[in-house]
């Protein structure tokens, strides 16, 4: 292609290769997103036609204590969960990465909990958190501690959900595992030969090489945690006393239980802005700490 400069050809190639996604964006994603933005300026009960109300839904949030409560719950949970997933997931991945006999079974066992679907999962945890007969409180009683009432105590319910979420670590670990597999063994071995101990080699060779994976897990868990829904929906339904009222749970309730789709849509767009702002912060900072072996700028 002599008449096209190399950089133009590369750009053309880029747009060609992302064309499936672009088309999907235009067909399936953008329309519904824009419609929901439009809905956020209306009052709509889903049964009768929507009514335009301007910015009223957004103004309503400011004076809605449950909006602030759900934001607070979600923020606290995110601060608890995201670091746990980053560190815990990596630790689990390192375990799964060992080359010992039976590792396949071991990996599967650790991944298993994240496979169990909603309802069954919650029943297992009701067994664990049951105030009188739960495994957790029976274990605590063995060491002389009178355990709390977990899911029925507003002070402990959110922590209990956090503990439940640790079961999903297997998912993050699998992503780390894929990242760890991309680290050439030679580099690690070379560092050891140069006199580094195992920790130093891990810290200075492995970690920098998997920063793209860490970045991925960080951004993704931010996006996902802010949208936590199922565990609260099934296990506590936001209670007791709204102590586990997650943002998206509140939004779902507004949409389908309180018949305020307009308000729900406004809540959704505020959530999008919050997550987007946080993601941008992480993306901006990534220049300083994420190392891309193969970046081409």
């Amino acid at each position: 292609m002599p008449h096209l400069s190399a950089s133009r050809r590369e750009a053309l190639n880029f747009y060609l290769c992302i064309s499936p996604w672009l088309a999907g964006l235009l067909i399936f994603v953008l329309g519904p997103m824009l419609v929901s933005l439009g809905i956020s300026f209306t009052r709509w009960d889903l049964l009768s036609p929507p009514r335009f109300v301007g910015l009223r839904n957004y103004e309503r949030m400011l004076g809605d204590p449950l909006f602030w409560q759900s934001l607070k719950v979600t923020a606290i949970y995110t601060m608890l969960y995201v670091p746990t997933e980053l560190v815990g997931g990596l630790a689990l991945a390192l375990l799964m990465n060992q080359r010992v006999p039976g590792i396949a079974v071991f990996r599967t066992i650790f991944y298993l909990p994240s496979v169990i679907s909603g309802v069954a999962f919650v029943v297992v945890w009701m067994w664990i958190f049951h105030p009188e007969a739960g495994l957790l409180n029976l274990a605590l009683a063995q060491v002389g501690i009178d355990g709390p009432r977990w899911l029925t105590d507003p002070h402990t319910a959110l922590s209990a959900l956090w503990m439940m979420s640790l079961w999903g670590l297997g998912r993050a670990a699998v992503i780390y595992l894929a990242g760890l597999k991309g680290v050439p063994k030679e580099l690690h071995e070379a560092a050891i030969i140069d006199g580094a101990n195992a920790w130093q080699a891990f810290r200075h060779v492995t970690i920098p090489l998997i920063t793209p994976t860490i970045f991925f897990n960080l951004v993704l868990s931010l996006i996902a945690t802010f949208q936590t829904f199922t565990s609260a929906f099934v296990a506590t339904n936001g209670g007791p006393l709204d102590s586990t009222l997650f943002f998206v749970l509140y939004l779902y309730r507004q949409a389908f239980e309180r018949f305020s789709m307009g308000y729900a849509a406004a809540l959704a767009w505020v959530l999008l802005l919050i997550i987007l702002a946080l993601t941008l912060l992480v993306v901006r900072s990534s220049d300083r700490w994420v190392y891309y072996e193969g970046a081409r700028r």
Partner: protein
Amino acid sequence: MISSSLKPDYAIFAVPPQLIPNPPRWANYPEALTFVPFGRYTLNTLLISAVTIVGHLLSCTVVAYAFARLRAPGRDALFLVVLATMMLPYPVTMVPLYVLFRALGWINTFLPLTVPAFFGSPLYIFLLRQFFLTLPTDLEDAARIDGANTAQIIWHVILPLSRPALATVAIFTFQTSWNDFLAPLIYLQNPQNYTVTLGLQFFRTSYTTSWGYLMAAALITMLPVVIVFLLAQRLFIEGIAMTGVKG
């Protein structure tokens, strides 16, 4: 769970809990499986999952490669758009999406659950992009000098190095569409077309739940995911060897 799946309902939340059911109620298994046509639902779900996996692997690989390697104006902004499409909670796009799929005549078919996969998923585009960015560029540069085009580079250079990441995408896709609840709930109307998660919901009514059946059915329907994981995770082991050879 296994323990609960073998109990009559009244014993499941007994205080104190019985770890070993006495006597075990094996009948929960055959009864749960005849109660709801899980054979049919499993086939439906397998079909949806398989098509979705193919769709994701095809589209996400190419799109992610472009975001990782090809330079173009607007690339970074578009990548933020990829991320942003994950940030709007599903409940508020549900109704417009339904209207869209209805206009296409796709309601009560598997199309709403499978076709979008061929247009890429932001999650897996992001995942693969991150992975591709960790691969050294030397091999590609060499291939390019030898006159390889983009397709040949993805095919001969990137793919062989990416097995762990592709396996991850396949596993996650499988699990996600296996456990997906809301989308089948909204788009599938005829019980013939239901998926496994919708079937599991049959054990709950507004006021009562058949816990024993639910547990038995949940365990059985988990099996395919476990098997897929067991098979796919072997690709992780291979990943090491490949890197060793090429690197």
